[in-house]
């Protein structure tokens, strides 16, 4: 290899290596550190008698919202309140007895299945258990 070419190659390579040595920590710094998220399995979502028939409330299920519904027939049902389309929080529409997402008009029935709109998947249904006065909600196995 010609001496000049070797020096150019050496200097160019050194420059790139230095640049990478500067950029690597910068990029690593900008990327958020991985934080282990405790996966909530069971929460107390409310009290018996708190919800009138045909109404609902949002509760905290770990880091995400869940929705507890007392149906017209008095059955307690719980779902993830995060729409499977673009993660808006759904609400219970008493007039239709469905879960409705106002972001893109997605609608789910009381089994969690999509009734209309763009959501690609059913919304996750949780298990509901009444222990004394408390209503517990947990992920289904």
């Amino acid at each position, binding site marked *: 290899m010609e001496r000049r070419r070797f020096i150019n190659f050496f200097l160019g390579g050194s420059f790139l290596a230095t640049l990478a040595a500067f950029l690597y920590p910068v990029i690593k710094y900008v990327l958020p550190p991985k934080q282990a998220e405790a996966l909530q399995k069971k929460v107390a979502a409310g009290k018996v008698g708190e919800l009138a028939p045909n109404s609902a409330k949002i509760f905290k299920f770990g880091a995400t919202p869940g929705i507890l519904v007392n149906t017209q027939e008095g059955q307690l049902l719980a779902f993830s309140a995060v729409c499977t389309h673009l993660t808006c929080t759904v609400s219970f529409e008493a007039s239709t007895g469905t879960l409705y997402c106002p*972001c893109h008009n997605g609608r789910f029935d009381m089994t969690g299945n999509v009734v209309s709109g*763009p959501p690609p998947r059913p919304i996750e249904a949780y298990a509901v258990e009444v222990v004394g006065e408390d209503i517990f909600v947990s992920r289904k196995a």
Partner: protein
Amino acid sequence: MKALGRNLFAYLDERFKLQGLFAFAEHKKVPEHEYSFWYYFGGIALFLSGIQVATGIMLLLYYTPSIDAAHESIQFIMSQVKFGWLIRSVHSWTANILIGILFVHMFSTFFLKAYRKPRELTWITGFFLLVLFMAFGFSGYLLPWNELSFFATRVGTDIAGALPLVGTWLKGVILGGTTVSQATLSRFFWFHVALLPLAAFTLIAIHVLLVQILGMSVPIKLKDKKLKEISFFPDFIYKDALGWTLILVLIGVICVFLPWEVGKKADPFAATPLGIKPEWYFTFMFTTLKLVPSHVLFVEGEVLAILAFLVGGIFWMLAPFLDRKAARGERSPAATWIGIILLLYIVVMTVLTYTVPKL
């Protein structure tokens, strides 16, 4: 007094060579013709960017980028700080008007085929500037930490998350975690006041430099005609300044009668409010996402729509290279029709968002 001014000018001229600058500006000519009106939108966009920098710096004095205090600090600016309502309203209204002006600037450039050779890079830097300013709007929208901005951010970042292969990673980088949280607000604040301004200044400098070097484009149908020319300084600048003054008055009037609202503080565990929609310049994409079915063949509708926007954006950016006729200096009606269809699509979808919310 006059002598003092003359002496001061002579002092500065000796050091900064101002005469040369004035001579350059006076000798620089700008073509004047029936489409010259559209030339002024670039200057107005630059002027509005200046307003955003000035008002943004002022807002930094009282704004607190924390989920417990951001909303309260905006309320404080709006209700307690003297003229705080004005500074914030000017910042928010100007942001919206600026993006509208950028759209006008972009489409007028497109229809006049000003992107054609040798101005391809001017078009591409302009395209990225529009993307950057939309990112400014998106990141700034979350800063007051209100209900609408919170859910708009959830939807917006989820759109990024729906991209194949890189989506999850990209969403995590934007959010600083898995959900919209304090980390997201800190990041958006950082994007809004540090990273995006740096990128925008760099791109604006390249864009304006290219306009200076290449001069202003003349529409294809006029390129063989002998056109009247005016000097850049003072004639063109005077006309520019008139446009700036008019827009400034307009912003002032709007801010006095319609100060920008603070909204309700975001509650991550509340249901999404009815009638939610993003800022107007995102609504054409927002409504498209409503209309796309959940699945198209075996692909999720949202993924398909997002990919279509991405691919469409790339084609739009590459317009100078795809429009071969314009590059040769020939008229290209096909490109014009594509532009008209796109413009109509954006207008119709935006209007539908506001007129048929339950679409």
